[in-house]
């Protein structure tokens, strides 16, 4: 339909009847724009005002069981298709309830967990009740137009199918995606790796860890016991489940070539790094090299980490990878440095730089972390992260939430701290960054034990907001209150031959400011899932001259002269 109407400036509400671009009655207590001397990127903590009362529970004990310190994720999911992103928090300690908050369209949320049936506490005595829950993925696995939810755990994972009435059903058993009951799964995401029109499922696995076999680590002095180094445990191979299109999945990890037992996966990101049309997978592993699974297009993957030089840091050492994302940070293409290809960003342990691998375009990446201006990430221990355009100036900024894994770290290293500040980097253009954390508002001066982080425009005002899940602490919702440096567009893809939300589609946007190549993809960060719509900052462009959508089903669709500052629904022809 849209192709036929190409050339017509698109206005959201008129064409598709989806909600207006901004929520009504949104509180405006935060002033828009920066104070003098501050960054134009500003965030305000609106958690309390929004009615988000979720508090993560880790179940921390003096035994320092490993799962207690890795936290849980957060996911944005418009589960009722009302055009506003709802918010789901995973809870940690076995038996603790997850939380689903419905977006009321006025800046507030309502806890609908019990009605929705996604508590995930498990029936007493069941394996689910003993599961320590970790990550969340959002995707429409049955292509019914409603987003489903997958929750990972140290223990059985859970697939919740959306019933279209505000409730979900646990279909894990019939779908066959529960995984072994002792496996420690972490970050996860839906992708259509074989481009057959339905969403497959990737699950990263961490350590071969048994609660009953928990070694003592740290000094043997009272109060000095610490969480063990991951070297004390073996890794566990990740899993890839192929969607059979009938509500069931098949575990094809081994045949697909992603079942590497060396992995200690914590973060997962999907992107087509060589733009061959097939979604690739990047896995951030903890203390062992990272994996870059190149999709061969034949149902298999080849780990190209050695060839592409994305497995290690600049010195050839493995790092403690936590969260990750993959997107083009040196765009738009009018800038000399940009080749339109996605870079890879990984958050790492304290006293390791967060790593930015620049995509050189010849199959090789270069570690440019230090020269990109990311040096302030050396001391903090990074977890959740997202590359997104926080100020709509047309390039991607970086948010990292931090927090150490060793709660008594100051006993060992007085210069380090358990709770830490987030890091916010403004992209100065061409993939060169400036740390603007100190200037970005009071909300970013708070310390937390940050773990999951997910980005979405929850109030549909064209600026991306941030939700953070902190270990054993209240969750935080950060509303983006910065000054818009430019216009924007938000694209909600509706697949027909492709999967229903267009995951994996490549979108090329051309304006007077240049060309941006982006992907529709909600999988990145740590244990978390982002807005499934594609947000693109447009800078000073007043109109989008051309949008090209390369759908995973193979169709190419072109729209021209598209109006800015709207949420655009694009139907696959």
């Amino acid at each position: 339909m849209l192709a036929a109407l190409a050339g017509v400036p698109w206005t959201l509400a008129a064409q598709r009847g989806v909600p207006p671009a901004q929520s009504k009655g949104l509180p405006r207590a935060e002033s828009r724009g920066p104070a003098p001397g501050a960054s134009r990127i500003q965030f305000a903590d609106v958690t309390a005002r929004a009615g988000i009362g979720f508090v993560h529970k880790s179940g921390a004990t003096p035994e320092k069981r490993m799962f207690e310190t890795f936290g849980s994720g957060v996911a944005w999911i418009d589960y009722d298709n009302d055009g506003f992103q709802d918010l789901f928090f995973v809870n940690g300690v076995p038996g603790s309830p997850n939380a689903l908050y419905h977006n009321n369209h006025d800046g507030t949320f309502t806890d609908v967990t019990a009605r929705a049936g996604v508590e995930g506490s498990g029936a007493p005595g069941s394996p689910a009740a003993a599961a320590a829950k970790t990550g969340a993925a959002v995707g429409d696995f049955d292509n019914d137009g409603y987003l489903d939810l997958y929750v990972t755990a140290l223990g059985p994972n859970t697939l919740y199918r959306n019933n279209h009435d505000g409730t979900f059903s646990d279909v894990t058993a019939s779908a066959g995606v529960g995984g072994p009951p002792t496996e420690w799964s972490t970050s996860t995401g839906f992708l259509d790796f074989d481009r057959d029109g339905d969403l497959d499922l990737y699950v990263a696995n961490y350590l071969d860890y048994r609660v009953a076999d928990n070694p003592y680590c740290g000094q043997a002095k009272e109060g000095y016991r610490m969480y063990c180094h991951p070297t004390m445990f073996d890794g566990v191979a990740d899993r890839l489940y192929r969607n059979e299109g009938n509500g069931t999945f098949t575990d094809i990890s081994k045949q697909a070539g992603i079942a590497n037992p060396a992995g200690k996966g914590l973060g997962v990101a999907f992107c087509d790094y060589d733009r061959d049309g097939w979604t690739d997978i990047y896995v951030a592993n903890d203390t062992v090299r990272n994996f870059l699974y190149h999709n061969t297009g034949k149902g298999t993957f080849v780990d190209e980490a050695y060839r592409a030089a994305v497995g290690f840091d600049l010195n050839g050492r493995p790092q403690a990878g936590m969260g990750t994302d993959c997107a083009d940070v040196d765009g738009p293409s009018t800038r000399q440095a940009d080749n339109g290809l996605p870079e890879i960003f990984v958050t790492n342990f304290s006293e390791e730089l967060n790593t930015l691998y620049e995509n050189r375009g010849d199959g090789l990446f270069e570690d440019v972390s230090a020269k990109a201006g990311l040096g302030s990430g050396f001391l903090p221990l990074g977890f959740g992260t997202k590359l997104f355009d926080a100020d709509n100036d047309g390039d991607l900024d970086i948010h990292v939430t931090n927090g150490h894994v060793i709660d008594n770290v100051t006993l060992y290293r007085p210069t380090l701290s358990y709770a830490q500040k987030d890091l916010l980097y403004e992209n100065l253009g061409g993939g060169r960054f400036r740390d603007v954390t100190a200037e970005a508002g009071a909300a970013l001066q708070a310390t937390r034990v940050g773990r999951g982080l997910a980005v979405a425009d929850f109030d549909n005002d064209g600026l991306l907001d941030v939700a953070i899940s902190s270990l054993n602490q209240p969750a935080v919702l950060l509303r983006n209150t910065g000054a818009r440096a430019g216009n924007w567009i938000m694209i909600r893809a509706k697949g027909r031959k492709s999967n229903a939300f267009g995951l994996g589609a490549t979108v090329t946007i051309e304006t007077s400011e240049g060309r941006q190549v982006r992907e529709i993809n909600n999988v990145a960060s740590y244990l978390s899932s982002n807005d499934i719509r594609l947000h693109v900052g447009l800078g000073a462009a007043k109109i989008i001259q051309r949008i090209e959508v390369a759908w995973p089903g193979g169709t190419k669709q072109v729209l021209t002269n598209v109006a800015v500052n709207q949420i655009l629904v694009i139907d696959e022809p």
Partner: protein
Amino acid sequence: MPAGFRTLVCAAFVAWQAAAPSAPIQERLERVRAELYSRTDRLAENVTELKQILALDPRSADAHMLLGIAYSTWGSKELKGEAIGEFRQALDLNPRLVEVRFFLARLYLDLGRAGRAREELDAALAQTPGNPEFLALLGEAERQLKNPRRAIEVTRQALQADPSFAPARFYLALALLDASQRDEGIKEMEQVVRAGAPVADAYLALGSAYVEAGRTADAIATLSQGLRVDALRPELHIALARAYRSKGLLEKADAELMLGKPKRSAMSDSSDYPYQQVELDFYLERGMIKLQRGQLAAAAEAFKKVLEFEPAHEAATRELAEVNRRLRAKKPGGAR
């Protein structure tokens, strides 16, 4: 990681990107294998070469195994995890590479994971029954798992298969000492040391056994010999200090002990069990020397330090009580 290694890795990668070597992969693997098994001065180059091979063939089980060996030889803790990963990937790609299980077991033992080491060695022995190398290492795993009888049994099996296999004798000696068969243990360990094995642990174990047996002159000679093998091992200095103390050479003991003072560095090092044990042994010996020299305050401080590490430490508790008794006795009207 030494700074030179970084430079070498980076330089080698740049060179490789400019012009990839054209020799066939198998030939390159054999060259690296020969180097890894015969010398340690080209580790950085070997690592780079193996990474290049894996860039060309990510599923080469041999390359993953050799990279694991290179990382293990490098010896840093951060690379041990990576070495285990490489070994596990190698085994996953080619389960017939039974020697990988041996390398894995050795790493697990280094990390104090004797149970996992035993699993790997059991699996290896199921593939190649009676292999003396696997049996010897299994003996050591059993010893670390506090099964000295079983350790003696399997190390003897290893020696039966190959009587000249020195590691089996070394592990047998350790097991005998653990099983309180001191004289037999000493005899076996003397054979190892006499054969000139460049293993500091053999000298340490034998020297300590001599001290226990009251043979302080032999202990001093053996431990001094051990320090010629590895002068940086604090355990040898601590054991030698103990030998001097046993002979009444308290000043010499004090000086020797200071050479063995563990250096606290990064958090990971200081939290390692072996490091903690050395620190504990150091303070215990310090307390003993100070006590015998009549330096009661210093002795008390040292014993308290031991009790910080291990609140129920029997010897430290006993000796601290003795120190306190003497301190009370020194006070006017203190002892009754």
